[in-house]
């Protein structure tokens, strides 16, 4: 887990900006008695937001639109992965039927 200070060292975000992101739930660290704690996922998320703002030129208004869409894409990917695993557990005949059905799409 990373502290707030470690996030500042590793990324381009500043205190004021990160506070806004946390408040908007764009980044979701956990809080313990010593302050915010960021997981690897949270760190990667901060880096992504920095890229989107500094490299891609998106502003906060645009991120309000982009982030929910992005999160839906990743939700769907997780769901598809679970679904794929579930299909893998099916008996072969059912599995082949699902795959044939997908191929028709």
């Amino acid at each position: 887990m990373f502290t707030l200070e470690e996030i500042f060292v590793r990324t381009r975000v500043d205190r004021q900006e990160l506070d806004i992101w946390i408040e908007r739930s764009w980044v979701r660290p956990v809080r313990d008695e010593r302050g915010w704690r960021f997981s690897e996922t949270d760190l990667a998320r901060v880096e992504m937001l920095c890229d989107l703002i500094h490299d891609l030129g998106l502003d906060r208004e645009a991120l309000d639109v982009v982030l929910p869409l992005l999160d839906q894409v990743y939700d769907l990917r997780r769901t598809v992965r679970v679904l794929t695993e579930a299909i893998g557990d099916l008996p072969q005949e059912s599995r082949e039927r699902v795959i044939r059905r997908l191929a028709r799409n």
Partner: protein
Amino acid sequence: MTNLYEILGVSKDVSPDELRKAYRALAKKYHPDLRPGDKEAEDRFKEIGAAYDLLSDPEKRKRYDAGEIDDSGAEKADRRFYRDYADGGDGARYYWHSSGDGDGRSGFAAEDVFADLFGRTGGGRQGGFRMRGADATYALSCAFLDAVNGGRQRITLPDGKSLDVTIPPGTRDGQSLRLKGQGRPGMGGGPAGDAYIEIHVLPHRLFRRDGDDIHLELPVTLAEAVLGAKIRVPTVDGPVDLSVPAGSNSGSRLRLRGKGVARPGGGRGDQFVTLKISLPEKPDDDLKAFVDGWAKTHPYDVRGDMEAA
């Protein structure tokens, strides 16, 4: 070898402003987090980033143009992208519905998607989609005698609903009971899934189970072992009288036919009673004097087969 200008798709005399625009356009196109399924996007994005890093620095750009820096020196440090985490379990914390309350409620995403994909009627290719609910698995600890004789137990599910579980006689440790239609609800009018209850049988103070048979260790007195006796013995369905033959020894095994566990196809296993001779807690002088006198005239060898060891 492609030069850095070609990577960004610009000419050598590009202005800093145009360079930035070109970089932005490519970064938008190739940022790996925006193209989670595209393996090449990451390499491409790093290449673009490295090229822009160098060319956007006027000093470095001058030296690059003069041939003092080559392409390879511009490689950016390795990093991991959000998409590397987002597909895993921790990524579920960023489930998008919950933005605002900051509390990732993973586990509902899949259901929402299925309800959305399969729940609509009329519009779909086949005019609606019925989908059976998912199966659910629960664990249940069960008393030894309930597993042997059958019983009934109520469990409370995570959603607060309670279920009465009938434990059939002869249930084994680790066995799963299937409760039809008690799993997750179906979609679009489809049937609910099944609940699987995995039974963990708790140990018993006296009885031990081995398949369909029950084992019990039974302490007997010296007199009961030597002279024989009729003894009340616990079984899984109440005490019965057991005849201990005269001259029984510690470790002798007696069988109570049909007093074991019910078999799935009918019939029952047996109960085996292993005797254990117990001396009085404090041997009294009478017993010492008697055994002393008796032993002198009745020597016997109990360790004859141990000599080789």
